[in-house]
Each structure stands twice: as structure tokens, then as C-alpha cells.
């Protein structure tokens, strides 16, 4: 009898959380937006998403098995599926399949596994894949197919983001009149990548993640608040800058703030660090959108701040219990 007793240190119970629960939790949160993108963009969207998810999972399996020669199967932890989903959301629905496969190879192979796999990567793998594709295939990555809802409304033309940038370049506020209203953007009647269309459904998913305690509010709220304030000030100063609601609901802002910047591995560990991270992403995004070469700055802003995450972790410690005065002063 005595021989079969397990001896281990406390705690002897566990809360039941797991990597899978968190990864699949994010996937579930993305479902409403996923279904909406299928409705908006039709069969093309389904093809892109399938290609993205399948190739991410296959690359994860093949690289860990044949190159890294690890026995541990990692494709079931859900992280490769999530990377595939997020990558898919960042692509136009009419992108050729071979480009998607290249993007997935970069995301999983270079973005994730070269660093050692889940938990070790510096950059968000899906974003690494997207930025790789954006730089390598700028034309294909920015030719959007028509949004079904858009057609019904009879609106067609450049994306809201490029209109906003054009207004600033030409110093002509009237260009902004061609933008869909904030409400239309919020609901999803606009052009863009698959995950850039419905802010509403993405926010519902985000609320789900907050409720399930998959993420905390710090990163999404600090990003969005910063963008609203910064873009709002610019708009007040000069009407060639779009109004802050249109800025927030356009492009990949919500997708980035709620799903990409909150990636566990590549965001800071302390709440204070997360707030700094979020504020910087917000500022960088507005700067790149308004004055950079690309109309969308979200991905670049997140990737840049990913690189700063280790530094933020060193300098932003959580508030210690009983920390009355600074450590140095106490000595």
C-alpha cells in the first residue's frame, strides 16, 4: 500500500486551465467574425482560411517531426491552428493559394519554430507571416475582392485606409467624405482583409475572451484609447485627419488590438508593461497610418513593440506586496 502513494510538493490541486483551453478559446472568440467573413467574401474567404490553417498545421507538424526531430506532438495544442486563423484574417480573400502557403511557412517556420516553438518566439508568428507577404507581394496583398455588402450599397473603390492617407497627402478633407460612416465600418460594410471588416463581431469575441479570463483588458483598452485620443486630437487640429471612430473601426485595428497584440508569448508580463506596450502600439499605428508608406500601420506597430517586450519585462515589474517606497530608497 505505502509503495503506491504519490509524494510531491504542494500545491496538490490545479485550477484546470490548460494551453489548449486558451488557444481554442481564442479560436472560438474568432468564430463570429470568421462566419461573417465567409458571408461577406463568399467562397474565396473559405478557401483562403482553409489554406492558411491547414498549411500552418502541416508545417508545424512536418518541421517539428522531420527537422527538429521532436517526439512531442504539438499540433494539438491549438497554437498552429490559431496562427493559421489569424494569418488568414490578415489576408485578402482573393489571394492565390501558393502565396498563402509561403506566408504560412514563414509564420510557422521562421516566425515560430526557429526560435524554439511555442513560448519562445519573439514576434507574433501570424503577423510575421503577414508582414513577410506584405513586403514580398505588395500588389496581391492590397487588391481586395469586393465585399458582398459593399456591392449592395453600390460603394466601390479604395479602402478607407488609403482614402484617409490620400486626404492627408493631398491636404484635402473632402476626400474623407467618400469614407463609409463610422457605423457602417463598425458593422462591417467596408473593404479590407477578411478580419478587418466587422469591428462589432470582433469586439463580441473579445468580450468572450475577457469573460473567460483568456486575456486581460490592459492591452486592447490601452491601444484603442490611445488611438482615439491621438487621432481625435489630430482631427480637431486639422480636418484632413479622419475622425477617431473611423480610425478605430477601419483596417486591422480591432483585430490587432484584441487578438494579435494580446498574444501571450510576445506581449509583456506585468500589467504596467502591458499598458506601456498598448500605448506605444496605439501611437505607432496612428503615426504609420498617417505619415508612413503603408496605409495600415497596425501590424508594423505590433511587430515593433514585440521587439521591445523583453526590455519592457526587465523594467516593468509588477507592484510588489508591501512596496511602500522604492527599493533603492529603502536601502
Amino acid at each position: 500500500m505505502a509503495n503506491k502513494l504519490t509524494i510531491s510538493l504542494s500545491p496538490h490541486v490545479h485550477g484546470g486551465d490548460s494551453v489548449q483551453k486558451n488557444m481554442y478559446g481564442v479560436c472560438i472568440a474568432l468564430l463570429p467574425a470568421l462566419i461573417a467573413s465567409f458571408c461577406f467574401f463568399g467562397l474565396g474567404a473559405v478557401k483562403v482560411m482553409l489554406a492558411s490553417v491547414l498549411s500552418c498545421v502541416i508545417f508545424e507538424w512536418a518541421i517539428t517531426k522531420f527537422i527538429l526531430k521532436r517526439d512531442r506532438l504539438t499540433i494539438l495544442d491549438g497554437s498552429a491552428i490559431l496562427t493559421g486563423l489569424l494569418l488568414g484574417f490578415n489576408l485578402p480573400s482573393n489571394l492565390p493559394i501558393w502565396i498563402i502557403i509561403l506566408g504560412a511557412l514563414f509564420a510557422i517556420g521562421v516566425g515560430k519554430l526557429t526560435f524554439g516553438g511555442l513560448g519562445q518566439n519573439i514576434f507574433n508568428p501570424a503577423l510575421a507571416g503577414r508582414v513577410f507577404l506584405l513586403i514580398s507581394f505588395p500588389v496581391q496583398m492590397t487588391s481586395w475582392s469586393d465585399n458582398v455588402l459593399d456591392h449592395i450599397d453600390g460603394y466601390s473603390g479604395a479602402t478607407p485606409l488609403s482614402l484617409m492617407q490620400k486626404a492627408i497627402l493631398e491636404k484635402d478633407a473632402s476626400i474623407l467624405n467618400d469614407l463609409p460612416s463610422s457605423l457602417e465600418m463598425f458593422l462591417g460594410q467596408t473593404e479590407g482583409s477578411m478580419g478587418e471588416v466587422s469591428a462589432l463581431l470582433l469586439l463580441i469575441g473579445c468580450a468572450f475572451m475577457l469573460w473567460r479570463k483568456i486575456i486581460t483588458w490592459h492591452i486592447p483598452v490601452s491601444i484603442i484609447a490611445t488611438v482615439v485620443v491621438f487621432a481625435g486630437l489630430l482631427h480637431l487640429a486639422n480636418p484632413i485627419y479622419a475622425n477617431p471612430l473611423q480610425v478605430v473601426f477601419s483596417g486591422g485595428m480591432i483585430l490587432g488590438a484584441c487578438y494579435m497584440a494580446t498574444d501571450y508569448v510576445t506581449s509583456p508580463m506585468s500589467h504596467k508593461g502591458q499598458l506601456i506596450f498598448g500605448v506605444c502600439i496605439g501611437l505607432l499605428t496612428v503615426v504609420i497610418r498617417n505619415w508612413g508608406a503603408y496605409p495600415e500601420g497596425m501590424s508594423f506597430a505590433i511587430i515593433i513593440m514585440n521587439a521591445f517586450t523583453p526590455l519592457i519585462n526587465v523594467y516593468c515589474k509588477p507592484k510588489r506586496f508591501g512596496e511602500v517606497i522604492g527599493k533603492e530608497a529603502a536601502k
Partner: protein
Amino acid sequence: MKTFSIGGVHPEENKLSAGSPIREAQLPKQAVFSMFQHIGAPANPVVKKGDVVKVGTLLGEAGGFVSAPIYSSVSGKVNKVDVVLDASGLRRMAVVVDVEGDEWEEGIDRTTDLVKLADCPDLDSKTIVDKIKTAGIVGMGGATFPTHVKLCPPPGKVAECVIVNAVECEPYLTADHRLMLEHPDEILVGLQLVMKAVNVKKGYIGIERNKPDAIELMTEKAKQYPEIEVVPLKVKYPQGGEKQLIDAVIKRQVPAPPALPIDTGAIVQNVGTIFAIYQAVMKNKPLIDRIITVTGKSLSKPSNLLARLGTPFSQLIDECGGLPEDTGKIIGGGPMMGKALLSIDVPMTKGSSGLLIMKEDEAKRAEAEPCIRCAKCVGACPMGLEPYLLSKVSELRDWDAAEQDDITSCIECGSCQFTCPSHRPLLDYIRLGKATVMGIIRARSAK
């Protein structure tokens, strides 16, 4: 709702024995009294083989100021004074007594009549502390720090209030809960005694909201003592930690070590300790028994037993329906901070608040996966530390980094490991790091 400010988790409560009234355990056939039942110097045996002892006879005298005497909880003959296996898993000095009858030392008041503070007008602070010291009372929540030491604040520190720890935040354990339901008056008098001992005018009793009957009863009974306040607390682990409880009740935070809880002006005592203090001072009864929760999902009769110290755990388990077939792990204490036992043939001690029988399928840890840097451990840590980092630097044996990042502030509550989605053994490594760093600090200050 009051609670502590940073972190915390909410484990499944599993208070299986909450409705089971305290029942007296049978006398053991043989009782074993370890000389290591408290933190500090071990007690020194003062009896030898063949000596006849009664309930309340001194077996071991305190080995220093931070130490406590050990009394016999049974009557009979000393079988041997030798090293035996105790609940820590070590072989240590103990006195073994073969039980015969149940004779008590004279002078111990075994009646259940309530003695109030007003009945003893000539009790002064020093007498109370001396009686507590002589009775061998130690912290009964599990830490087993000698109580009289806590009641003698170091020079320059002044106590402002006494807080009774009736939180019982460990899942499964219900001993304190039952004690409050069955002996509320004694607890209130005990608290008054401690308040008098340290000369303060304010006493609090902190109880978590998952014990509404105890809150109601204690509040009702405390009405006659205006200086005592019952404080209901939100259910959150580790609220029973001394620092967390002070923060929850009086909103003051104990600074990092070497600061002590007394720096906030609060003296915290477990409710079981308070009851023992009442018995020692008012009834002249040394610490010879305690309430222990014997519980587990497969156990047929989860119970709260009033058992004599030195009783083997195996006998307590037999009284609660016997050891279940599917037993996989046996824990002395609660599931969050208790210790896994090597054997059930070890005696219960002053710190034995619970005995938890876990099923085989609950006993094994899940396999650890890579850290995904989700920061949930950082959010859960009630001390505001970074468990992922402390665990990592300890694993890499980078003691400087561990010290720099305040590893010595860790209270080893296990919230980080409880919450980790990757099932990483965070606390195992942190314990290693903390013990090593404390050793380094001691060596440095000894120079």
C-alpha cells in the same frame, strides 16, 4: 467586500465535512510525541523509558525562547525515547507512550463551563503570556510558530490590534469552521485574553463568506464585546496568509523581509490557537489535543475529529471509514500548502489541521508543457512577484537574479502553479531558489 489587494485564486472549495459536528476520537493504543512539533529549537525530552505519565505530564521542555514544551496527551508508561518517522518524513527524536486508562494531571479543569475574563480580575498581561508559554501553544493554522514569541513584540514595535484568522482558505479543511460553530464564546474570551496580553483595545475576527453560519453566530455573540469586530471577507485564496489577512482586514501591507507583520501594528492568531489559549489560561490545560479535519472524496465519513496529539493518522482514518481502495496520495494539511505523507503510521502533531486522502486520479500532476508566457502566474501571485521568472532563474541556478527579483518574499502559497495552464512545476523551482538565496543571505550577514 473586503479582501487582500494583489492576486489570489479561487480553488474548488470541497468543504465535504462542513456539516459534520466535532467528534472525539478514540484514545490511541500507543501515542508518539515528536519533539519537533513547532518552528524553532526542538524540545528536550525530560522522561525516560518506564516512567509513568498522565494526561498533561511534561514530556519535553522548550529548547530555547523560540521553542515550546511538549505534554503527554495520554496516560500510561513511556515505552521508549528514540528517533521515529514523523509527518515530515524524517526520523526524529520522540517520546513513545503505551496508553493505559485516561488519568489526568490535577489542576486541569475538564468541565465545559465558560470562564469569562470578568471572572478573573487579577489576570495580567505577563501571567497570560507565561501561561501560554508554559502550555506549549504554537500557531495551529499549520505554521506552528510558538505563540508566546508572537505576543512579545520586539523592542520599538507596538501592537495596535489583534486579528483572529478564521479564514480557513484551504480547500477541504473545516476544523476552524466547526470550532467557531461549537465554541464561539470560548473563542471570544480567548481573543480578549490575547488583546489583554498585548495591551490593545481592538480585535477583529476575519471569516470568509463561504461560512455564513459562522459569520452570523460570531457576529451575534460578539455584540456583547464592543471592542471585537467580525469582518466577513470575500472568498479568495490565500487569504489565510498572515500578510494577506492583515491587508484584507486593516488595509495595511507588511513591507518586504526583514520587516515583520507586527510592523503594521497587527498580531494575527489562528482561531484554533485562540481556543487553545482560552483553555490554557482559563482551564489550565496544556496543548494536548486539537481539531483535525479528516477528509477526501473517496473517504466514506469525512469528519472533524477532536483528537489527542500523538494519535497515529492511520487510526484517525479508520475512524472515518478506513483508507479507501483508490487512495493515491495522503496529505497532511490542505491541498494547497499541505505536505504529502510517506506513510500514515505517523503521529498527529500540534500543526495537524487536516488529513486529506486524494484519489489516484487526483494524485498525479499533469505533464508540464512549455511556458507560453501568458502572465497568469504574475496575475495570481498575492505578493506581486513574477513566478515564471523566479522559477526560470532558479532552474538556471542564477541566484543573484532570484534575489534581485525578490524571491525571498514568496510565501509558497502555490497560486502560481495552481493557475499555470502549462502545468509547470513553478513552486518546486521557486522553493529551491528561495531556500538557496536565504542561505546565501544568512552566510553574507554572518560575515
